C-alpha cells in the first residue's frame, strides 16, 4: 500500500529492499533445490545431480552472503526507511555496537545462523568427499528451513518467516508522518540498541554461539547420512573433528555469554540458571556425551546406538532451545528471551521434520547395527565413558524438565511455576553430577580400552588422589570452605562443597600427572588430558567464586530495616552519601561524585584498603559504574569491576539521587534596602539600588534598576546577586526583568515588582532543593573467578588439539 507510489517518497533507498527481498526468496529456493539434488545424488550417484546440487548450494551461499552485506549496509548507513535499521540501531552507536544491533532482532540472528550454515556447508562441499551427498542433503534442508525464517510471506493466511527488509512505512502504515513524501527528514533517530546489549561481549558472543549451533548440525548430519546409507563405520573418522570443533565452539559461545552476564548484567555472576542459559547448555552436554561415545565406538565397536542417539538429541535440543527462547513461551520465567514473532509453529514443524525421520531410521536400521558379543569389561575405559555419558544425560534431563515448565503448563493446562529457590533446585542435583563427572575425567585417561587389566600407570592416579586430598584441604582451609556440614541433628558429614572441591582438584592433578608421566608431554596426544585438566580448573573456579562470593555491601548500619525484615535476611544494598566513607569488609568505600552527560551518569566510587596495622595503603582504586539513560528503553545500570589475579570486586549502582527537577519558589514582598531575609540554607542582604545596571535595556527610553543583593551561607561564604528591573515609561509603564541565576548555589533571584511610592521591592526566588547526593550501591567480591575463565580457555584449547590431530 504505497500512497505516493514507489517514487513518491523522498530519500528512500528502495533498491536495497528489492534486492534483499529477491535474494531471500531466491536463496530459499536454491537451498531447497540443493537439498533435493543432493538427496537424488546420494540415491542415484548420478553426476548430473551432483553438479546441480553443488551449483545450487553455492548459489544459495552467495545469496546468504549478499543478504548479510545488504543488512549491514542498511544498518551502517542508518537508512531508517527500513524497519530493522530503525528498530535496532541509532545514529550515535559506535561501530562495535552497530555490529551488535545486526543480531539484536530475530531476523538478524537467524541470518547469522544461516550465514554460518552456508560457510560450514561450503567447507563440507570441499572436504566431505564420499560423504558429501548424504551430509549435504541434511545441511541443504536445514539451510532451507533457516532461509524460510526470513521469507515474510503469507501462505494460506499463515505468515512464514519475518523479512528484515520491510519498510518502516509498511510496518507502521497508520502513523501520520507517512502521509508526507519527505517523512524521512522528520525521523529524528532510530530506536537504538537495548543498553544491556551495549557491551563488547555482545559483539562476539552471538557469532560464536550461532557458529556453535550451526556446527551442532554436522555430527547429526553424518548420523543421518550413515543411517540412510547403512554404512555404520565410514562416518566415524570424518565426523570426529567436526564433533570436537562443535564442542569447543559451542562451549566457548556459552562461556562468552556467561562473561557478558557477569560484566554487563546486574545479577552478579556468570550463571543464574536462567532458562535461556540452561537451554544452550543442554545441547552442549549431549554433544560432550555423544563425542565420548563416538570415541568408544571408534576404538571398541561398542555403543553405536547411543552415539547416534546423543548426536541426534544434541541437534534436536538446539531446535527445542530455539523454540523456547523465540516463541515467547518463556516470557514469565526468563529475563532474556526474545518476544514472539509468530514463528513458533514453524519451529515446531521443523523440529518434527528431523524427529520423525530420526525415529524411523533408527528403528528400521537397528537390526543392522553392528553388535558386540563381548560385554564391556568393568575396568575398561569404555565402561566408565558410558557411565559418564549417562550422568551427563541425567544432568540434561533435569535442566530440560524444569526449564520446560511453561511448556508443561501449555500442554497439560497446569499452573506450575519455577521453584522458589531456583539456584538450590539445580545445585542440589547438578553439584553431585558435577562431582562424579570430575572424578571420571580424572580417572578415565588411566584406563585402557577393551581391557579389564588395570594399566600400570594407575599408580599415578593413586598418588594424584592423595595429593588432591591434601591440596583440597589446604584450599578449603585458605578459602574458608567448611569440611563438614550437619545433615541431621548431631550428625555431620563431609560437606558436598568440600567433596566437589576435592573432585575438581583431583581432575586437575590427575590429568597433569598423566600429561607429565604417561604421555611425557607429547602434544599430539595431549588433547584429552589438557581438556580434562582445564575442565577441572574451571570447576575449581566455579566452586570457589560462587560458593565463596561475598556481598560486601551488607547494610550493617541497621538504622531502619523496615517492617517485615528478618534480621537474618541479607540486605544487600547500601546507601552512600556523597563524600562519606563506608566500611565494607576491609574496604573504605567513598562515593566521590558523579559526571552527568546526555547518555549516562557515571558514578565514581573509591575503594581503599589499609594493611593490618592501618598504616600503609594496600589497595586504592576507583570504580565507575554507570546508569545509561535511554528515552525509549528506560534506564539501565552497568556494573563496574576491578579485576585482580585472585579476585574481582564487582560494583553496581541500583539507584541514585535525582536533583534535577526539585525546585522551591518563594515570593517576598515589600523588601527595603538594608533588609535581610532568610532562605532555607542562606540568608540574603538587600544591600543597595544601582541605577546603572550591568545589563543595558534594549530600548534607550526604558528605565532600569538593579538590586544589589548578597547571598551568604552559614560558613561565611558569600556571593553577589544582581537582578535588573526595566520600566518602559513611554508605553504605559510596561515592565520586564532580568533574573540573576546562581547555578552553583542553586538560587535564582528575580524582581517581580517595585512599589514606586514606598520604593520597596518584591522578589521571586527560585531555589533548587539541594538534596544531598547519594547512590545505592551493591558490591560483591568474587574470589578466584579468573580460574573459571582460564579453565574454560584451557578446556577449549585441549579440544582444538584433539581436533587438530584428527583433522584428516
Amino acid at each position: 500500500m504505497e500512497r505516493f507510489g514507489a517514487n513518491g517518497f523522498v530519500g528512500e533507498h528502495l533498491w536495497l529492499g528489492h534486492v534483499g527481498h529477491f535474494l531471500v526468496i531466491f536463496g530459499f529456493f536454491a537451498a531447497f533445490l540443493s537439498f533435493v539434488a543432493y538427496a537424488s545424488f546420494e540415491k542415484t550417484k548420478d553426476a548430473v545431480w551432483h553438479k546441480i546440487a553443488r551449483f545450487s548450494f553455492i548459489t544459495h551461499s552467495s545469496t546468504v552472503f549478499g543478504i548479510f552485506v545488504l543488512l549491514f549496509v542498511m544498518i551502517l548507513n542508518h537508512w531508517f526507511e527500513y524497519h530493522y535499521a530503525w528498530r535496532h540501531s541509532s545514529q550515535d552507536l559506535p561501530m562495535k555496537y552497530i555490529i551488535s544491533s545486526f543480531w539484536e532482532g530475530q531476523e538478524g540472528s537467524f541470518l547469522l545462523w544461516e550465514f554460518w550454515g552456508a560457510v560450514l556447508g561450503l567447507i563440507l562441499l570441499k572436504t566431505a568427499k564420499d560423504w558429501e551427498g548424504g551430509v549435504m542433503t541434511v545441511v541443504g534442508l536445514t539451510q532451507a528451513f533457516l532461509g524460510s525464517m526470513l521469507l515474510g510471506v503469507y501462505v494460506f493466511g499463515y505468515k512464514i518467516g519475518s523479512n528484515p527488509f520491510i519498510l518502516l512505512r509498511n510496518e507502521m502504515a497508520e502513523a501520520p508522518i507517512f502521509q508526507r513524501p519527505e517523512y524521512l527528514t522528520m525521523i529524528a533517530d532510530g530506536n537504538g540498541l537495548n543498553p544491556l546489549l551495549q557491551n563488547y561481549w555482545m559483539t562476539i558472543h552471538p557469532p560464536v554461539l550461532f557458529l556453535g549451533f550451526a556446527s551442532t548440525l554436522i555430527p547429526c548430519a553424518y548420523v543421518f547420512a550413515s543411517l540412510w546409507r547403512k554404512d555404520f563405520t565410514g562416518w566415524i573418522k570424518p565426523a570426529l573433528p567436526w564433533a570436537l570443533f562443535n564442542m569447543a565452539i559451542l562451549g566457548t559461545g556459552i562461556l562468552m555469554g556467561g562473561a557478558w552476564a557477569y560484566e554487563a548484567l546486574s545479577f552478579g555472576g556468570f550463571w543464574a540458571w536462567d532458562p535461556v542459559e540452561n537451554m544452550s547448555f543442554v545441547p552442549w552436554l549431549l554433544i560432550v556425551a555423544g563425542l565420548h561415545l563416538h570415541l568408544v565406538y571408534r576404538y571398541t565397536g561398542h555403543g553405536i546406538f547411543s552415539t547416534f542417539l546423543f548426536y541426534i538429541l544434541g541437534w534436536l535440543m538446539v531446535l527445542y532451545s530455539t523454540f523456547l527462547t523465540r516463541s515467547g513461551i518463556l516470557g514469565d520465567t526468563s529475563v532474556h528471551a526474545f518476544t514472539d514473532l509468530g514463528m513458533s509453529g514453524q519451529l515446531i514443524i521443523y523440529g518434527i521434520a528431523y524427529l520423525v525421520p530420526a525415529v524411523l531410521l533408527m528403528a528400521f536400521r537397528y537390526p543392522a547395527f553392528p553388535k558386540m558379543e563381548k560385554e564391556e569389561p568393568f575396568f575398561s575405559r569404555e565402561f566408565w565413558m558410558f557411565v559418564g555419558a549417562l550422568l551427563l544425560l541425567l544432568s540434561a534431563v533435569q535442566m530440560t524438565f524444569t526449564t520446560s515448565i511453561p511448556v508443561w503448563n501449555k500442554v497439560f493446562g497446569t499452573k506450575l511455576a519455577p521453584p522458589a529457590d531456583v539456584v538450590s533446585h539445580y545445585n542440589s542435583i547438578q553439584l553431585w553430577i558435577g562431582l562424579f563427572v570430575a572424578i571420571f575425567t580424572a580417572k578415565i585417561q588411566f584406563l585402557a580400552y577393551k581391557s579389564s587389566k588395570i594399566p600400570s600407570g594407575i599408580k599415578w592416579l593413586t598418588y594424584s588422589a592423595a595429593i588432591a586430598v591434601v591440596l583440597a584441604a589446604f584450599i578449603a582451609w585458605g578459602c574458608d570452605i567448611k569440611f563438614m556440614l550437619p545433615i541431621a541433628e548431631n550428625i555431620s558429614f563431609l560437606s558436598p562443597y568440600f567433596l566437589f572441591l576435592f573432585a575438581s582438584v583431583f581432575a586437575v592433578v590427575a590429568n597433569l600427572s598423566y600429561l607429565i608421566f604417561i604421555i611425557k608431554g607429547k602434544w599430539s596426544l595431549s588433547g584429552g588430558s589438557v581438556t580434562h585438566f582445564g575442565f577441572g580448573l574451571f570447576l575449581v573456579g566455579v566452586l570457589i567464586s560462587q560458593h565463596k562470593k561475598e556481598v560486601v555491601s551488607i547494610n550493617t548500619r541497621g538504622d531502619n530495616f523496615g517492617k517485615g525484615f528478618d534480621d537474618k535476611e541479607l540486605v544487600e544494598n547500601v546507601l552512600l552519601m556523597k563524600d562519606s566513607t563506608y566500611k565494607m569488609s576491609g574496604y573504605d568505600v567513598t562515593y566521590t561524585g558523579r559526571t552527568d552527560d546526555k547518555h549516562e551518569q557515571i558514578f565514581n566510587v573509591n575503594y581503599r584498603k589499609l594493611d593490618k596495622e592501618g598504616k600503609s595503603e594496600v589497595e586504592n582504586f576507583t570504580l565507575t559504574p554507570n546508569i545509561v539513560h535511554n528515552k525509549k528503553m528506560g534506564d539501565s545500570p552497568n556494573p563496574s569491576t576491578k579485576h585482580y589475579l585472585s579476585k574481582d570486586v564487582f560494583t553496581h549502582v541500583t539507584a541514585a539521587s535525582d536533583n534535577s527537577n526539585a525546585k522551591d519558589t518563594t515570593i517576598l514582598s515589600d523588601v527595603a534596602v538594608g533588609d535581610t531575609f532568610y532562605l532555607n540554607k542562606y540568608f540574603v542582604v538587600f544591600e543597595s539600588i544601582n541605577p546603572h545596571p550591568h545589563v543595558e535595556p534594549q530600548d534607550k527610553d526604558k528605565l532600569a534598576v538593579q538590586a544589589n543583593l548578597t547571598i551568604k551561607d552559614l560558613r561565611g561564604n558569600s556571593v553577589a546577586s544582581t537582578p535588573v528591573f526595566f520600566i518602559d515609561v513611554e508605553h504605559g509603564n510596561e515592565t520586564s526583568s532580568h533574573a540573576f541565576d546562581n547555578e552553583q548555589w542553586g538560587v535564582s533571584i528575580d524582581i517581580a515588582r517595585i512599589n514606586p511610592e514606598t520604593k520597596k521591592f518584591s522578589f521571586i526566588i527560585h531555589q533548587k532543593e539541594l538534596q544531598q547526593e547519594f547512590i545505592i550501591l551493591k558490591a560483591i567480591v568474587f574470589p578466584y573467578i579468573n580460574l573459571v575463565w582460564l579453565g574454560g580457555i584451557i578446556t577449549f584449547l585441549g579440544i582444538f588439539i584433539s581436533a587438530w590431530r584428527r583433522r584428516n
Partner: protein
Amino acid sequence: MKKIHILLLIVVAVSIGVIVAMTGDYTTYGSFALSKASPTQTLNVVGYLQKDKPLKYDPKVDPNYFEFTMSDKEGNVQQVFYKGSKPQDFERSEQIVVKGKMEGASFHASEILMKCPSKYTDDQIRLKEKA
C-alpha cells in the same frame, strides 16, 4: 543382561525419582486471594502495577525496602513489599510477576520479574523537533 543395561535402568529410575522428588520445589501461579487462603505457600502472582497508588521507596530511610500496590489478574488489589531496591523502570512495567507469600496483610515478594514490552516493541517514531 549386560551391566551397562542394568546401569541404564538405574539411571532411568534415578532420573524419574529425582524429577518426582524435585517437583516438590515447584511453586504455582495463583491469585492474591489464593495466597491469603494458604499463607504458607509460595505463589507466583501475575498482575499489574497500580500506577495511581504511591510507590514507597525512600533509600535514605532504607535502601532495601520497597513497597507498591498491584492487582492480580482476577482484580484483587494487594499491597506488596520487597526487601531490596526498587527495580529500574518499575513504573514503566506492563506486567509484573511477584513470587512470595502473605505476611500479615501484606504480600512479601522474594522476587520480582517485570515485563517491559516497551523495551523491545515501543513503536513510537521520534520526530525531529523542527517538524
